[in-house]
């Protein structure tokens, strides 16, 4: 009964620090075994079992201290934990940009939007579905990324929060639309824009985070990061002023409908 109580306290402390699942259970098992060993030794030495149990749990350490050590060690042992900012913010952005770039390039080439297409006749269903895939795929990948982060959890809830925020903003901010190349390759239009609620939210959040949010996320943020915060604040402010369609890029085909029929 008493053991259950202590284990529950330890589990809660670990969870508060973002350690749960297999890692937490493994630690709890080791701590419990340690206490049982300690109780057995104390009882052998002549201590009354109730007193021995109390002393053993006390010697193990306070739940918060143990949980702190656990997160510290787990962070040291994993690349994600050692570089939470890079893993939580920079990598998702870079990954997302890279993926979007590849998808856009492939789309423009394949559909013959602004370039010669390898296929002469594009299925209208492909044209219809491609933007949907592009607009939806980052969400799917975000979920996979978050599941991976959640499983590892070396950076705790802070890292998970950061990654969630970044990915949610990135994947909702970018939208693509395609005007089908009806007159053959090179006759369509492809437009990519940072717009809609995601883009606006990104701008507003950048404004807010530039003020104080980043500082609150990490104890180590100070000095040099103050410039980064100011930059985010400035960019956020500019984005907000520019309105919902913050930025757009389009590729237009070089042919028009008449050209195709005339040729």
């Amino acid at each position: 009964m008493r053991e259950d109580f202590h284990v529950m306290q330890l589990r809660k402390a670990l969870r508060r620090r973002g350690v749960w699942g297999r890692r937490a259970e493994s630690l709890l098992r080791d701590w419990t075994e340690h206490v049982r060993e300690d109780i057995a030794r104390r009882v052998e030495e002549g201590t009354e079992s109730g007193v021995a149990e109390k002393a053993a749990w006390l010697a193990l350490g306070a739940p918060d201290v143990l949980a702190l050590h656990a997160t510290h060690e787990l962070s040291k042992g994993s690349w994600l934990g050692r570089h939470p900012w890079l893993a939580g913010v920079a990598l998702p952005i870079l990954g997302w940009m890279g993926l979007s770039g590849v998808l856009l390039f492939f789309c423009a080439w394949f559909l013959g939007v602004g370039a010669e297409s390898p296929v002469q006749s594009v299925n209208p269903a492909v044209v219809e579905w491609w933007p949907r895939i592009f607009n939806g795929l980052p969400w799917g990948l975000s979920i996979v990324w978050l599941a991976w982060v959640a499983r590892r959890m070396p950076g705790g809830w802070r890292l998970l929060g950061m990654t969630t925020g970044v990915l949610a903003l990135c994947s909702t901010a970018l939208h693509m639309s395609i005007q089908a190349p009806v007159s053959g390759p090179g006759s369509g239009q492809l437009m990519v824009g940072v717009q809609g609620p995601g883009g606006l939210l990104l701008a507003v959040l950048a404004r807010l985070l530039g003020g104080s949010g980043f500082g609150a996320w990490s104890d180590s943020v100070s000095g040099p990061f103050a410039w980064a915060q100011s930059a985010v604040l400035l960019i956020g402010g500019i984005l907000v002023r520019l309105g919902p369609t913050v930025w757009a890029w389009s590729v237009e085909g070089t042919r028009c409908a008449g050209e195709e029929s005339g040729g």
Partner: protein
Amino acid sequence: MKTKEHLLDGVPELLVLQLLSRTEMYGYQIVSEIVRRSQGALEFGEGCIYPLLHRLVGQRLLVERQEEVSGRTRRYYRLSTTGKKRLAALEGIWTQVSQTVSACGLEVRHA
């Protein structure tokens, strides 16, 4: 004290690796041995050693095996080849630091 914490940051790892370089031990045994050898000078919360052990196993510096003893599950740890290399590196760093500290005129004073 923060400085003290930073100064001692790598010490538990060095102690654990050194202890396990001689023989394999289970968690409770490691803790008891550190307490006995340091005569209470190094105050680690007993439970703090386990997250360290888990990290070292994760980094493949230690190898673990399980054994049932009197209804209790003991996890025995021993040094891996990588662990031996890591220990040699840490001992090198430790020697270098202590020599530097001595060269700066800081001597260990015995009571």
